[in-house]
């Protein structure tokens, strides 16, 4: 069984993100990027399924500019067998990505589409669900446990009330939550080998997909800075200060 895993290049989670002074977005030039952490979990899960013999081939896919190849190389170092780079220099919104991934999924005839539940840059949490809808296949989102047996997958999901276990028919979309697994360290020999694995380039046009401009970002603003605290010496002072703010 073939599994398709989508991976996204995002500003690294360690980086303190800065909003551009004109509010048109965040600073990405010269900033460290890496694979979206939820996608690392998706890659790790695919590799574990392969190690268990449930999956025979892992194909990693991404959409974006030339630099995104780095992210595919990371996926190949994790253990993807090959990768597909959908080259698109312009803005990619979730619907565009979903249409493109759906087209690749169909073309590859993969039975599993595994993706991070969301990317840490736009927090959209849409692509996986849209892929399922576009192809009219099952979806199991926010997975914290995945078991594949034959043409069915049993997925435990993290929901508000606790854990929910569902069974889906394959092909299906699975999106991964934080507690599904802990991604392994990439080994240097694997990174070396990944340089030699094949990456096929394609475009939206090749896939017969048009860019979907569903929304426009009108403004990006940093969160308000926390105002300075006030030191109080006595309980009375504290009570007075709270009262003055109408909190008591």
């Amino acid at each position: 069984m073939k599994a398709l895993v989508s991976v996204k290049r995002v500003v690294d989670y360690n980086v303190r993100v800065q909003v551009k002074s004109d509010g048109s977005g965040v600073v990405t030039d010269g900033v460290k990027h890496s694979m979206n952490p939820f996608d690392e979990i998706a890659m790790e899960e695919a590799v574990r399924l392969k190690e268990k013999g449930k999956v025979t081939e892992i194909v990693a896919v991404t959409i974006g500019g030339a630099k995104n190849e780095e992210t595919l190389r990371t996926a190949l170092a994790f253990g993807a067998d090959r990768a597909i780079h959908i080259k698109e220099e312009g803005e990619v919104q979730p619907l565009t990505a979903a249409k493109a991934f759906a087209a690749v999924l169909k073309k590859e005839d993969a039975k599993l589409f595994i993706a991070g539940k969301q990317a840490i840059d736009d927090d959209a949490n849409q692509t996986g669900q849209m892929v399922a809808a576009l192809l009219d296949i099952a979806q199991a989102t926010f997975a914290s446990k995945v078991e594949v047996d034959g043409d069915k997958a049993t997925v435990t999901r993290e929901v508000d009330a606790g854990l929910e276990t569902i069974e889906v028919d394959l092909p299906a979309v699975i999106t991964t939550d934080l507690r599904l697994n802990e991604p392994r360290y990439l080994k240097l020999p694997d990174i070396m080998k990944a340089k030699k694995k094949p990456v096929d380039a394609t475009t939206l046009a090749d896939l017969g997909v048009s860019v979907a401009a569903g929304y426009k970002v009108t403004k990006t603003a940093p969160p308000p800075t926390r105002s300075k605290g006030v030191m109080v010496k006595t309980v009375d002072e504290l009570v007075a200060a709270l009262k003055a703010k109408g909190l008591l």
Partner: protein
Amino acid sequence: MSVERDVMEYDVLVVGAGPAGLSAACRLKQIAAESGQEISVCVVEKGSEVGAHILSGAVLEPRALNELFPNWKELGAPLNAPVKRDELHFFYSPQKSFRFLDFMIPKPMHNHGNYVISLGNLCRWLATQAEGLGVEIYPGFAAQEIIIENDVVRGVQIGDLGVGHDGQPKGDYTPGMELRAKYTLFSEGCRGHLGKRLIERYQLAEGTDPQHYAIGLKELWEVDPSRHELGLVVHGAGWPLSVTGTESTGGSFLYHLENNQVVVGLIVDLSYSNPYLSPFDDFQRFKHHPVIAKYLEGGKRLSYGARAIVKGGLNALPKTVFPGGALIGDDAGYLNFAKIKGSHTAMKSGMLAAEAVAEKLKAGSEGGDVLTSLPEKFKASWLYEELDKSRSFGAAIHKFGALIGGTINWIEQNIFGGKAPWSIRDLKKDHESLKLARDSEKIIYPKPDGKLSFDKLSSVFLSSTNHEEDQPVHLQLKDPSIPIAKNLPMYDEPAQRYCPAGVYEVVGEEGAKRFQINAQNCVHCKTCDIKDPAQNINWVAPEGGGGPNYANM
């Protein structure tokens, strides 16, 4: 514990993807292409990506880059702000200063023809060029040990991943591989932890003057466009360091980059003597000087970082070759202190080493021998001539202070053209220069205002520093009792103040004090390894990928 390690072999291994290492890698591949040789080159880098651990002013003199890539403009090198104007100020109080006229400035400090750059971005660009030429670069992997067999350096061992704080392997333990090469070039930057061992092991510093260091602290700001002057370079000496004496020397800088960005920094020589001095706090208050504040007011601080600088120059330059490899760049100490520039010299030293290695390989060498032609190449190059001219610069300032030392430098550089009939030397080691706390005056630093000046922790936050929490402490104490038993009573444990990242703290009540090491804050500047008066702190590489994630620094 015996583990099986993967092994990869290359012709040349480069440790550290900075200007020296990347220039060496590029030059090797260029020579290989020109002469039809096959040379395999691998670069390992402890930062999570190339540039993540690079911190420099920086004003770049493009001499070495012109030689390495004459067409760097077409190749899109990030040199976007040619120096338009130079200012040199002497700050003699928190409010007052004096600006030198052009003719009064020592010649090496003129910057016409140079560029204000982010060295991190230049390294990122160099890495792209290197990969284009066929160099393999692996960021996120720290060289942990030198492989020495029969007195010959054969490569390095990468640090293990997944080792717990107790030194025991965790569930995801991954042994580091061995990278072996015919020749290994060490380009870890100032006070490299392997370079330090090589200098000891092969007695490379025998007969040279003691090495000298400084700590450089830097911030990147986005300023009000009306206060921005692209290509303006402002240097300063004096306040907040000693105005007349030699208790603390150093200098300051403020450069205007593209995109309304300004970098500001303070360099404090680690030969300072007052244990109460805090380079970080001096830097913070320095920004309030009117000459500096006028650019920063209303602006936004984007990034912060610090790095030690090697500045002993030619008098302190160790032997750079040993069986199987060489030290290049700041790992050896090629910085030109008179120009306050080390990037072009680092690049050149890497290029010269590449040439020496390529010659050996062409002659069919199997490696492991001494690159004897490298010292000759160095001697015959402009790099030697340049360092020779400024050999006394730093020592003069250490010994005579900013004003008199600066005057001596002016006479040397502007009258004798660097060929003065004397050589000023400074034989006192930086870690021996501290006076006892009881003989020193406490320094009361003003509280940060949150607009121009900030506290240490919010600053470290801007360096995007991160380390895996559950790993052995990478700042090792040879004797754990020294900080509290000796350094505290004698020097009020200066690590609390010289560390620019708040790694070292003395906590607890009187009588039950404890030395705490917050290793995850470490920005890899190496100041503690240099300045600890007991030479008790040993900086080793943490798990690969840890440390700062500097952007545009």
